[in-house]
C-alpha cells in the first residue's frame, strides 16, 4: 500500500499565488474527488504535483511513500509512480501511439523492454476496453484526435503504465454520455489495493460512474471542506453558494487559468 501526502502546498504562477496551503492524504484504494468552482486552483494542483515547469512551489511538501517528490524531475516523478491524465493532452506529430507507449513502458519498468507480442496483446485489449479505433497503435500521438479520443487515450496510457497514483484533471470535460461511461468504468476497474486516484472535476456526472471515497471542495487555493459522497448531492442541488455562507468565506468564480 502506498501513501501520497500533500502538506501545506503553496504554488505560484509568475509570482501570483494560486495554491495557498493545500493538505491532502491519499492512500491506495481510495478515490478523492476534488470539486470546486472554476479558477480555484484545482488544475494548478494537478500540474504542480506532476512538476510542470510553469508552476513554482513556494512552500510545503509532497511525499510519495516517504520520498519527497518535489525534488524530482517530471520523469522521475512518473517513474516513482505518479501519473497525470491531462486536461489538454499534447499532440505529438510523427510519433505513433504504440512507439510512444512502448518507450514509456520501458522507462517506468527500469529500462526493461516488454516483449513485443505481450505488449501488442495488452495494448489491443486495453484499447478495446476503451472502445478506441483499431488503427490506434499506428496513429500519431493525439494528432487529429477528437476531444473524447484524447481523454480515452489518457486512460489507455494509465491502464498500461499502472502507476501508484493517478491525478485525473477534468477527464470528464468534453465527453459525451457514452464516452463518459466508458472512461468512468475503466477508471473504476483500476482502483484496487495498489492504486489510488485524485479526480479533479467540476461537474458531477463522472461521479455517477466513479464512486469517490472522499470528496473535497476547493475554493481560492485551499481545500475548505472534506467529507463523503453526501457533499456531491449538496453541490448538485445548491451549487457552491452554500459553502460561502456555511464557512463564511467570500469568493468569486473566475475563468480557468
Amino acid at each position, binding site marked *: 500500500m502506498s501513501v501520497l501526502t500533500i502538506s501545506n502546498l503553496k504554488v505560484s504562477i509568475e509570482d501570483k499565488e494560486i495554491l495557498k496551503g493545500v493538505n491532502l492524504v491519499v492512500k491506495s484504494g481510495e478515490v478523492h474527488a476534488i470539486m470546486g468552482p472554476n479558477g480555484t486552483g484545482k488544475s494548478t494542483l494537478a500540474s504542480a504535483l506532476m512538476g510542470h515547469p510553469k508552476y513554482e512551489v513556494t512552500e510545503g511538501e509532497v511525499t510519495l511513500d516517504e520520498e519527497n517528490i518535489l525534488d524530482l524531475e*517530471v*520523469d522521475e516523478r512518473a517513474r516513482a509512480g505518479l501519473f497525470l491524465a491531462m486536461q489538454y493532452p499534447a499532440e505529438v506529430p*510523427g510519433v505513433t501511439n504504440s512507439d510512444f507507449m512502448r518507450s514509456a513502458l520501458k522507462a*517506468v519498468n527500469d529500462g526493461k523492454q516488454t516483449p513485443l507480442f505481450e505488449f501488442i496483446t495488452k495494448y489491443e485489449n486495453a484499447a478495446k476496453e476503451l472502445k478506441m479505433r483499431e488503427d490506434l497503435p499506428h496513429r500519431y500521438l493525439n494528432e487529429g484526435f477528437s476531444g473524447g479520443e484524447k481523454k480515452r487515450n489518457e486512460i489507455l496510457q494509465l491502464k498500461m503504465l499502472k502507476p501508484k497514483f493517478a491525478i485525473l484533471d477534468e477527464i470528464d470535460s468534453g465527453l459525451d454520455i457514452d464516452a463518459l461511461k466508458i472512461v468512468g468504468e475503466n477508471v473504476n476497474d483500476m482502483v484496487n489495493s495498489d492504486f489510488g486516484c485524485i479526480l479533479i472535476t467540476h461537474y458531477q456526472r463522472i461521479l455517477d460512474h466513479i464512486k469517490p471515497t472522499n470528496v473535497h471542495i476547493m475554493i481560492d487555493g485551499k481545500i475548505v471542506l472534506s467529507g463523503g459522497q453526501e457533499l456531491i448531492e449538496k453541490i448538485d442541488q445548491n451549487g457552491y453558494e452554500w459553502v460561502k455562507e456555511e464557512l463564511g468565506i467570500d469568493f468569486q468564480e473566475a475563468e480557468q487559468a
Partner: protein
Amino acid sequence: MNALVIKDHAIIGSLPTGITFTDQTLKIAKNSHFEDPIKITLKDDNNESLEIIVGESSQVKIILEIASEDTNQNVYDIKLTAKQNAIVKYLLVCDLASNDAKLHHYFTAERDAQMDLIGGFVSNVINAKMNAKLIGEGANVNLRAVAISSTDNKQVIDIEIIHAAPNSTGTMHNIAIANQNGKVVLNGVEKILKGMKNANAYQSLKGIIASDDAIIEVNPILLIDEYDVKAGHGATIGKLDEGSVFYLMSRGLNRKDAERLMINGFLNPIISEIDDEPLRERFVELVNQRL
C-alpha cells in the same frame, strides 16, 4: 529491391531489364513500371557525376545513397530528368564525412511528369543545391529536404523550384535541425517565370533548435513574375514545444529521450519513405547520433 552499386564510373554487378548505363548516364526505358525501388549507391567515389533519365510514362522509385569516409573535398553533380508523364519518387540519403562537400542536384520535370523528391542530409560540412525545373505543362514537383547538424557541422541547403511552364505545381517542405554548435542555413526559393499562368507554388521551412549554441537560418523566398498564380509560404524557427516535452516526460521518458522521440517524429514522414531497411536503420542511427 533492385540494388546497384556505382564505383569509378562503372556499375558493379548486373543491371535489371529496362535499365541501361553508359557514359555515367542511367536510363530507364519508357513505359517501364518498377514495383520495387531501385537503390543506387555511389561508393567512396568523389568527383562523381551521374545522370538519371526516366523514360516517358515510366514509374519508378529511386533511392540514391551517397556515402563516403573521405574528408577531402567532395563534389557531386546529379541530374535527374522525368520525361513526359513519368512518375518518379527520388530519395537521397547523404552521409559525407568530407570537410568540404558540394552536392548539386538538377531535376527536370517534363509535361505531366510527377516528381516526389526527398533529400536527407546528415553530413559534416556541405553545400547542397537541389534545383528543380518544371519545363512541361502539368508538371508537378514535391520536394522535401531535411538537414541535421551537430557538433561543428555546417550545412547550407539551397532548394529551388523554377516554374518554366504554365499549370505547373511546385511544393517544398524543408526541415532543419541543429544540435550542439551545429549550423544549418536553409534557403528556399520558388520562382514563377513570366507567362506561366496557373502555376501553384507553396513552400514551408521549419527550423528546430535543440541546443542554445545551435544556429539555424531560414530564408523563404518567392519570386513571381506572373499575376495569375497561387503561391504561399511560411517559415518557423523554434525550440521543441515545452508542453509536448512535459507531456512525454510525465509518462516517464527523460528529457533526452522525449526530445529524441519528438525529433524522430518530425523526420518520420521522410524516414518512412526509405524502403531499404538497412539504409533506413543507418539513417535513423546517424540522425540519433546527432541528437
